[in-house]
């Protein structure tokens, strides 16, 4: 019985159901795409190139768990536990254990990785010419590099800026069809490689070959039970041991996917819910009729739920497939932005699709029950009578919730007035979400207020189109809100997402410019600069001071408002004897001269405030490679955004990085000597730029980050665009009779179109104003927190682009919808039939 009704209703109200179908389909597509990103962050990766011969690769855990239970991925290679190698050799299942070290070198300006020859056993490389390296000055070259030289030639390889001459004794090539392409490799003798390698040559990754009859997975299992604190990799997973950036990329994908999923799914659900209520509202007359002829409220809800189950189920099933395309498109975008390696493969299991389908259909059903309550409860006679007008009142619960969330959002935006620094920015960032939900709940009311403000002059307009549009809008604020709110949400979201990045970047670059006092910035060419390299630079004639700077990150753990909390900060290692001639961090307290060894640290005011630390206090750190340190705060400075929030002694920090090298050396020269020094250092093989060439710390990360935000934004705005067009087409389709009547009363088609154009301008303007109003409190809050300026420094071009693109889209959608709605002859629409 119910099924018959459902089928009949779907046939009868095709237009309105198509809207719901499209909304559900696109929401599922979005949710599936994000789900795939998250799953890929957990299981995706890159095929191993070099570590393809070993059965099991063993490394240290590349993450740690904080007190509050968050897993923080580590960006520096974590050294293997000291006894791990010996323990591996003891394992009965292990036939052979081969350790590997990787040292970054520069060969004629391009980076190569150096390894000990014994590690070639882990790889597909086999000698094709010559012999293995035996003496410390012998080298075997591989792959593309092999074409640049020949056996017997002498080449110069630089480590940390210090050149050394090697004789090519052999050429190796991969025995497999595919040559490793992600990096170029050379092999030195084991002793030479170990002498150059970071961490004093301790192996960071070990390959294990299984005894005959033992499968790689069995071996991996034995290793994990036998040796604590190591991670094992088999099969394609071995790529994760080989490429540190893949692990970072996976962490990034999970972070992007989940942070972006929250907002996106919220918006998707809002769109599905509002589409549904639009659809149900358009059929109130049917429900009233059913109530009149004896249907119980429960039967009405039942009917609505069944309809939605059919429509949403179909939409969700079909929408899951293009979700995989969306994920590939985002993967491509992230790879272009340099956030993930170009060859990073997505995991593609059905789990994200299933999750998305369940989530979206469940949300649609919930929305259906909520939306059906009104027609189900209504007095049928009353409903039939007032069926041609729309109800304007919002439920009290909805209004109260909306107002409370709005107030909380505003308060959260004001957090930087009370607390200072980056930590305070979390308030405004969260405020946006609260304000978006609040605007969604209060939508029709806000639109009515806006109409009271903007509609007055329009209603007095001599143009019938403007008058009609304004009057319609006032009495149909709910229908108008269904179009306005998603656009306003999109504008608000876009402005805050892009604006936050710009505010941070602007401030960071301002700090960096103000604080960098050195005359020259010297980098090591294709790799970093070692302690020896820095010494070479410092000894160069005309150099007054040379300050090597290593970059990494440090996680501070502290108690915030009674809860354990952790935050990862950019960190720099500088020469403690440095003075203001190379670097001016704008000290507030203490001095960098007090930095000595690993157990002292200087913090930015932001980080110090977050950790509640003053000079002399102790803070709990996890260094980039996961090493736990309790360090005494010896200085506090303001320019954290430009240079990193944590500053340590250069040598101490370098020991806990993957390469053990500094990133660059800041050089101040004796008066008038700059040009000579620049030339001398360049001749010595260093890359020398003036200080304008140095980006603020984390500029690269911020660029990547803003690219990610941009991609996320494009996806969300694209989704909103589809939703807006969908809603507008639905809402306009309901007005067929109105347009027909107007035409019969003498309105030309042009007048109807011009009325709808006036309405679309109102939609666009109100949405733009509302969107900007939504974005303003969080942006002002973020700006106050980051730069202390109440006026956020956002480029007007960006603002206009975001606001205009969505507004124009709404106008085009409405114009197209109006045209298609007027396609039928007016008289056949009105006729004598109801």
């Amino acid at each position, binding site marked *: 019985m119910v099924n018959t009704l459902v089928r009949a209703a779907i046939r009868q109200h095709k237009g309105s159901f198509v809207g719901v179908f499209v909304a559900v389909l696109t929401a599922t597509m979005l949710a599936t795409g994000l789900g795939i990103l998250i799953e890929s962050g957990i299981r995706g990766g890159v095929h191993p190139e070099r570590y393809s011969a070993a059965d099991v690769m063993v490394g240290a855990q590349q993450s740690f768990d904080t007190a509050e239970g968050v897993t923080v991925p580590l960006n520096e290679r974590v050294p293997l536990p000291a006894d791990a190698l010996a323990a591996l050799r003891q394992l009965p299942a292990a036939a052979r254990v081969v350790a590997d070290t990787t040292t970054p070198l520069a060969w004629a300006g391009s980076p190569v990785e150096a390894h000990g020859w014994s590690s070639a056993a882990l790889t597909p490389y086999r000698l094709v010419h010559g012999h293995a390296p035996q003496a410390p000055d012998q080298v075997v070259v591989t792959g593309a590099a092999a074409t640049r030289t020949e056996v017997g030639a002498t080449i110069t390889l630089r480590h940390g800026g210090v050149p050394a001459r090697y004789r090519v004794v052999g050429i190796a090539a991969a025995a497999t069809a595919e040559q490793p392409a992600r990096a170029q490799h050379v092999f030195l003798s084991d002793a030479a490689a170990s002498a150059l390698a970071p961490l004093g040559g301790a192996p960071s990754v070990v390959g294990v070959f299984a005894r005959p009859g033992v499968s790689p997975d069995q071996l991996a299992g034995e290793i994990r039970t036998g040796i604590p604190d190591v991670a094992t990799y088999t099969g394609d997973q071995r790529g994760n041991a080989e490429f540190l950036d893949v692990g970072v990329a996976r962490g990034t994908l999970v972070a992007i996917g989940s942070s972006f999923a929250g907002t996106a799914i919220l918006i998707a659900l809002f769109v599905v819910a509002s589409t549904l209520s639009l659809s149900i509202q358009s059929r109130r007359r049917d429900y009233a009729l059913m109530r009149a002829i004896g249907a119980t409220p429960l039967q009405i809800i039942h009917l609505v739920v069944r309809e939605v189950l059919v429509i949403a189920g179909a939409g969700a099933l079909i929408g899951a497939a293009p979700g995989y395309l969306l994920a590939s498109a985002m993967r491509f975008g992230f790879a272009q932005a340099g956030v993930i390696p170009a060859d990073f493969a997505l995991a593609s299991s059905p789990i994200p699709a299933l999750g998305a389908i369940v989530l979206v259909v469940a949300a649609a059903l919930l929305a259906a029950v909520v939306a059906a309550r009104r027609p189900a409860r209504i007095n049928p006679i009353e409903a039939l009578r007032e069926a041609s*007008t729309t109800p304007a009142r919002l439920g009290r619960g909805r209004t109260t919730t909306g107002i409370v969330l709005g107030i909380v959002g505003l308060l959260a935006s004001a957090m930087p007035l009370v607390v200072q620094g980056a930590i305070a920015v979390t308030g405004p960032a969260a405020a946006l979400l609260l304000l978006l939900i609040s605007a969604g709940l209060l939508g029709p009311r806000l639109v009515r207020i806006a109409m009271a403000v903007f509609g007055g002059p329009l209603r007095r307009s001599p143009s*019938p189109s403007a008058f009609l549009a304004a*009057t319609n809008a006032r009495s149909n604020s709910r229908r108008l809100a269904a179009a306005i709110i998603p656009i306003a949400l999109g504008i608000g979201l876009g402005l805050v997402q892009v604006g936050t990045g710009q505010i941070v970047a602007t401030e960071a670059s301002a700090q960096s410019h103000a604080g960098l006092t050195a005359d020259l910035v010297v980098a090591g060419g294709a790799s970093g600069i070692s302690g020896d390299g820095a010494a070479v630079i410092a000894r160069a004639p005309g150099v007054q001071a040379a300050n090597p700077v290593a970059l990494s990150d440090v996680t501070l753990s502290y108690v915030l408002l009674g809860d354990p909390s952790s935050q990862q900060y950019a960190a720099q290692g500088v020469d403690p004897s440095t003075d203001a001639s190379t670097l001016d961090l704008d000290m507030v307290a203490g001095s960098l001269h007090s930095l000595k060894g690993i157990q002292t640290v200087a913090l930015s005011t932001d980080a110090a405030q977050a950790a509640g630390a003053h000079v002399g206090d102790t803070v709990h750190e996890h260094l980039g490679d996961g090493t736990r340190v309790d360090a005494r705060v010896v200085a506090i400075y303001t320019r954290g955004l430009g240079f990193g929030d944590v500053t340590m002694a250069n040598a101490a920090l370098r020991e806990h990085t993957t390469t053990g090298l500094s990133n660059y050396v800041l050089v101040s020269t004796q008066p008038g000597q700059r040009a000579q020094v620049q030339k001398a250092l360049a001749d010595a093989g260093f890359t020398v730029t003036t200080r304008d060439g140095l980006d603020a710390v984390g500029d690269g990360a911020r660029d990547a980050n803003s690219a990610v935000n941009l991609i996320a934004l494009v996806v969300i705005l694209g989704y909103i665009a589809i939703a807006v067009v969908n809603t507008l087409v639905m809402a306009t389709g309901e007005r067929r009779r109105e347009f027909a009547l*107007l035409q019969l*009363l*003498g309105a*030309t088609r042009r007048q109807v179109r011009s009325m709808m154009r006036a309405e679309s301008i109102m939609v666009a303007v109100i949405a733009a104003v509302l969107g900007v109003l939504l974005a303003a409190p969080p942006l002002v809050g973020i700006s106050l927190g980051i730069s202390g300026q109440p006026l956020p420094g956002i480029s007007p071009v960006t603002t206009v682009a975001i606001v205009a693109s969505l507004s124009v889209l709404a106008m085009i959608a409405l114009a197209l919808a109006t045209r298609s709605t007027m396609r039928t002859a007016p*008289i056949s629409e009105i*006729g004598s039939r*109801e």
Partner: protein
Amino acid sequence: MTMNINTSIETSPPRAQSSTRQALRLEAVVKRYGTGASAVMALRGIDLTLSRGSFSAIMGPSGSGKSTFLNTAAGLDTPTSGSVWIGDTDISRMRANRLARFRREHVGFIFQAYNLLPALTIEQNVTLPLMLAHTRVDRAWLDRIIRAVGLGELRDRRPAELSGGQQQRVAIARALITRPDAVFADEPTGALDSRTGRQVLELLAQMTRELNQTVVMVTHDPVVASHADRVIYLADGAFVGYQDGATTQQIIDQMSGLGEW
């Protein structure tokens, strides 16, 4: 008493002299849908002249061409051949936009239901055609019409607050506000109970007399048709007869002769 209407109705001589007297004239109007073998002749040569101040009902069984007649005579659709004159303008060759502008000044419409825009007040609904035509509202005429249809106190209400009969009175006032050459009513009482329907029809008749307006009403209901001064019968796309001042029973008898209805 079927007779050849074509000659009998055409009481006034063609064109020129009649410009003030005739409200509507159809000359040899043919409307054909489709082409070739599948073509359907909806109107097969209609000739009709209605003088100003007349209240006519067009009756006929379903499929007789009532709707096509209404659409064609009111300028909502163009005839395949023949011409349609409203007042002293030939509208049968006008293009859509000009026709729309002509209609709003010279033709009024009353429909069965969904006549009013819910967002507008009663007075705004009534003056809407003037506004669309960018014409100033003649307050005296507006007051007179609103009083005549008995809606004086309800001007600022919205349609949802009115009964069905009251809404239809608003529609009548709106149809008359432009002093049109002809008002076309399509089953104007179809959605009303018989008592309210009778009141609305009496109002229509009174309007035609007092304000010298011309009303053409299409209906299938003999009771409704009996309120008109003249009932014109349509069958199979052609006029087949007429009666002046017919009673309900006379109309029923006449219709029975025309077949299923």
